[in-house]
C-alpha cells in the first residue's frame, strides 16, 4: 500500500511540533547506550568494564555479520594476538583436559576471584563418546584428531593441525571473525597450561576423543 504524503504538510507539522519523526538509527544507538549504562551495575568480579566493547565485539554486534573485507581484516588482527607456546610444547594431559571440558564454571558474578575457569566445551560440542549431555552450538569434536589424520602429534606432519588447533583455542576469532566461541587464551579465560590439556584431549591418540 502506498500513501500520498504532502511534504509541505509534513514539514509544517514538524515545525508545529505535532508529529514526532521516528528516531534515526543513530538516535536509537544512543538511546540503547544510555539504557545499557543505566541498567547494569558491577557485582562481584563482574565489573562494568565488561561492557566496554573492543573493535571485534563491536563489529560482531549487528543483526547481520560484517562484510567479508571487514571480517578478513579483523581475523588478521586477531591472528596477530595468538601467543604460541614459548617452549614449543603444545600438548598436556588429556585427563585434565576432559575435566576442563566438563567444567562450565568461572568468571560469573557468583564466582570468587582467582578461581580457575573451566573450558565450557561440552556446553557447545560433542567431544567424547561417553558424555551424552553435550551441546550443538559448535561442531562435534568426536574423533577430532583421528579424522584429521593425527597419529603422532609430535611428528612434523601433524604440526600444521596442531598449530591450527592451538590458534582456535587461543583465539577462535582468528579464523572466524564472529565465531560464537570465546577467545580462551586471548581473553585470559584459560591459562596456556589449561589450553595444553585441552589440546591433548583433542589430539592425543590415546584420549577418549580419538581412542574410543
Amino acid at each position, binding site marked *: 500500500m502506498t500513501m500520498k504524503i504532502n511534504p509541505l504538510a509534513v514539514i509544517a507539522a514538524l515545525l508545529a511540533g505535532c508529529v514526532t519523526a521516528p528516531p534515526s538509527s543513530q538516535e536509537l544507538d544512543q538511546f540503547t547506550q544510555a539504557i545499557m549504562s543505566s541498567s547494569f551495575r558491577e557485582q562481584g568480579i563482574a565489573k562494568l568494564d565488561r561492557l566496554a566493547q573492543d573493535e571485534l565485539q563491536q563489529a560482531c554486534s549487528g543483526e547481520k555479520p560484517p562484510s567479508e573485507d571487514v571480517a578478513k581484516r579483523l581475523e588478521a588482527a586477531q591472528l596477530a594476538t595468538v601467543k604460541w607456546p614459548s617452549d614449543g610444547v603444545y600438548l598436556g594431559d588429556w585427563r585434565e583436559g576432559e575435566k576442563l571440558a566438563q567444567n562450565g564454571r568461572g568468571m560469573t558474578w557468583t564466582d570468587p576471584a582467582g578461581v580457575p575457569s573451566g573450558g565450557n566445551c*561440552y556446553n557447545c560440542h560433542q567431544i567424547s563418546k561417553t558424555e551424552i549431555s553435550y551441546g550443538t552450538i559448535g561442531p562435534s569434536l568426536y574423533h577430532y584428531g583421528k579424522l584429521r589424520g593425527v597419529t603422532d602429534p609430535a611428528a612434523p606432519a601433524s604440526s600444521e593441525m596442531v598449530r591450527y588447533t592451538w590458534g582456535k583455542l587461543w583465539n577462535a576469532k582468528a579464523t572466524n571473525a564472529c565465531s560464537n566461541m570465546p577467545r580462551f587464551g586471548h581473553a585470559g579465560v584459560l591459562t596456556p597450561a589449561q589450553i595444553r590439556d585441552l589440546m591433548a584431549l583433542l589430539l592425543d591418540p590415546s584420549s577418549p576423543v580419538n581412542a574410543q
Partner: protein
Amino acid sequence: MTRSAAVAALLAGAGLLPAHAQSVWAQAAFDGKSIDDVIKGLGIAKPVASADITFTAPDIAENGAVVPISASTALPGVKRIAFLVEKNPTTLAGIFEFTDAVETSVKTRIKMAQTCNVLAVAIMGDGKVLYAQKEVKVTLGGCGG
C-alpha cells in the same frame, strides 16, 4: 479447591494427623547407605525380581533434583512399596503404605545424586518381598555454571 488451615485443627482433634495414623518411623531403614542396609533396617526378606511390579522411571533425568517415578501392581497382597536409589548418600527415598481403600499404585518424585538403579520394592502381607528396577541416567544440564 484446597480448603486449608481451619480443617487442620479439626483433623488434629480427630486424631488424623500422620503421627497417629502411621506405623513406627523406620529410622534404621532411612539411615541405610546400601540396599542391604535398607532391607535389614526394614526387617524384610531379600527382594525377588518380579514382572508383577510395574515400575516407571525416565531413561534420562534432565535434572537429578527431580526424577518422576511410579510403581503399581495388580497383586492383591502388596501392603507397602518402598523406593530405593542405589547410589544416593542414603538409599531409601520413601515408603508408601496402602489400605484396601486405595489402588496399589503411586506416583512420586525423587532426588538422585548420580546415574544408578532405582528400585520399587513391594512388601506383601505374607512376608514375600518383590522388586522391579530401572537404571536412570542423570545428566549434567544447562551451562553448568
